[in-house]
């Protein structure tokens, strides 16, 4: 049981990394990115490519993947999504779904539908901590995910770009009045979100197999994490990720592994109905209003 808890927390760190990037986009431009999971998938494949063809250690390919994904994300927002920022939110959602289909198709063409795994040389090393076995790789992945989150928090707080992003999130029109190029900020935000997704993909590929249709379930997980933490907020998603990891694994341990997805969905619905502002509580720029 304790072992399951530890595994859940370690997995949760990765979930948090997936959820934060997703939540960032929603907080800044009210966009639910249905292509998020596929961006993660592409990130994983980039690292797979670096490992297999160039012999690059997965942790070293992290920056490679992040840079590639930043460029892809920046261009997608700049060329496509920026054209429809004022459209109906669902049209934008459908648009990201179209992007998702294209990404999946590209992955299918380049890497085929096979399951791929990254077998780093140190993949099977463990160490013992009392009665608990801690897989070294999972611990490293957990730490990397936390470091990335911390880096994002520092970036948002202490750089001019980060503050411009926050200002845009608060009020787009006011941001424009004080000289912020909103469209540019949107593109940079999408780029950052994609870079984080790319990093999450590299970390994910180290602990589980990747395949082109991986995106859908990951997008749902990202959404669950973001809702648990309060959609739009950054630090809530950290808690949300760890809660999801722990609940999924302990639930699977108690009821049975075939219910793992069901548990996540049940938790999502429960939070949406009873506590739409997220576990931590503060309502961000969400549009949830309880009618009647």
């Amino acid at each position, binding site marked *: 049981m304790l072992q399951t808890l530890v595994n859940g927390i370690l997995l949760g760190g990765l979930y948090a990394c997936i959820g934060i990037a997703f939540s960032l986009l*929603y907080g800044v431009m009210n966009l*639910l990115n249905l292509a998020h999971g596929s961006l993660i998938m592409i990130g994983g494949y980039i690292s797979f490519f670096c490992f297999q063809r160039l012999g690059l250690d997965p942790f070293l390919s992290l920056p490679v993947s992040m840079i590639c994904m930043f460029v892809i994300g920046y261009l997608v927002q700049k060329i*496509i999504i920026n*054209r*429809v920022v004022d*459209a*109906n*939110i*669902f*049209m*934008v*959602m*459908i*648009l990201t*779904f*179209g*992007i*998702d*289909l*294209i990404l*999946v*198709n*590209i992955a*299918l*063409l380049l890497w085929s539908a096979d399951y791929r795994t990254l077998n780093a040389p140190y993949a099977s090393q463990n160490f013992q901590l009392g009665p608990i076995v801690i897989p070294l790789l999972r611990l490293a992945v957990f730490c990397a995910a936390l470091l990335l989150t911390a880096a994002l928090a520092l970036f948002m707080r202490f750089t001019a770009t980060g503050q411009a992003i926050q200002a845009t999130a608060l009020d787009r029109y006011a941001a424009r009045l004080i000289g912020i190029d909103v469209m540019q900020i949107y593109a940079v935000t999408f780029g950052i979100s994609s870079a984080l997704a790319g990093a999450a993909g590299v970390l994910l590929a180290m602990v589980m197999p990747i395949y082109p249709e991986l995106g*859908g379930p990951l997008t*749902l997980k990202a*959404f669950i994490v973001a*809702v648990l933490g309060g*959609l739009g907020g950054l630090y809530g998603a950290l808690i949300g990720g760890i809660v999801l990891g722990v609940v999924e694994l302990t639930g699977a341990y108690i009821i049975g592994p*075939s*219910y793992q*997805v*069901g548990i996540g*969905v*049940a938790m*999502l*619905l429960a939070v*949406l*109905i009873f506590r*739409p502002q997220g576990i931590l509580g503060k309502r961000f720029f*969400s*549009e*949830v*209003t*309880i*009618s*009647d």
Partner: protein
Amino acid sequence: MTDRLSVDASGPISGSADAGRSKLILALLLACSLLVLLVVPQYLNSYWLRVLTQVLMVAVLASSWNVIAGICGYFSFGNVVFFGIGAYTTAVLMSQFDVSFLVTIPLGGIVAAVFAVLIGLPLLRLRGHYFAIATLGINLGAREAVTNLDWTGGGKGIWLQIPDMEPHAFSLYVFYMMGAMLAVTVAGVILLLRSRAGYAMRAIRGNETSAAVLGIDTTFYKVLAFAISALFSGMAGSIYIFWMGYIEPGQAFDMALNIQFVMAGLMGGLGTVVGPLLGAAVLQIFSELIWSHFLQIHLGVLGLLIILVVLFMPNGLISLMPWRRK
């Protein structure tokens, strides 16, 4: 007839007389297509019959999705769950209780509608993205539940007995069932749009708070729209399982199908009667062509199509039709 259409479009718009004439044209167009649908299928091979049945089915699903998303303004992103529930109702009733197929069609719709009321009461309090994703979650949850239950056949699914009919006659039979289903759905949507409930739903789409201030019982009408949407989707699901003869969770609660009818609705134009039908026909025939000619990249082409529609035709194909141009 095409001549008259173009003259009308270029001429000055003269209020209600013009509106009456365009309605007449619309009715004539519908009558023609109905006639074509009744006569032509006799001479088609089973491949095209299958494609056309699929078109009709997506048109039913797009029209019923239109009730909640287009008319009431609540973007349900997991409406395929009602399709799956209808399909499973028929499958379970036919395989385990020997109920005749025709009886199970309305039952499939009713079970789906009851389910819609049950989930609608808590979920329709959510707005915007939250409602969309909650319905997406409901679909995944239903799929998980059906996979884990025993009496639904679990992950293995349910086989039906092969009906005692010659194959081409069977294809024709299913085609006409689906066609009749579409007629019922479209009639339902037209009646709804003209009724008090239809006005209430459109008021909710416009501005829910104002609608409530005007004395509209918003919860009631939202749940009603959801239930009507589920009713037609569930009945389509019943016909679908009879057509396929086999059902398993991944196929009943298929997100790809969900995307197809959402796309059909958006492409055609939401909130209108004809839009979803138009969208379903164009999208299905188009993707059938892509499937058969560019198998490797059909996902990408579909994705590109979605992007182009959103960027350049956000109000759907119906906005390009002559009688709509202003």
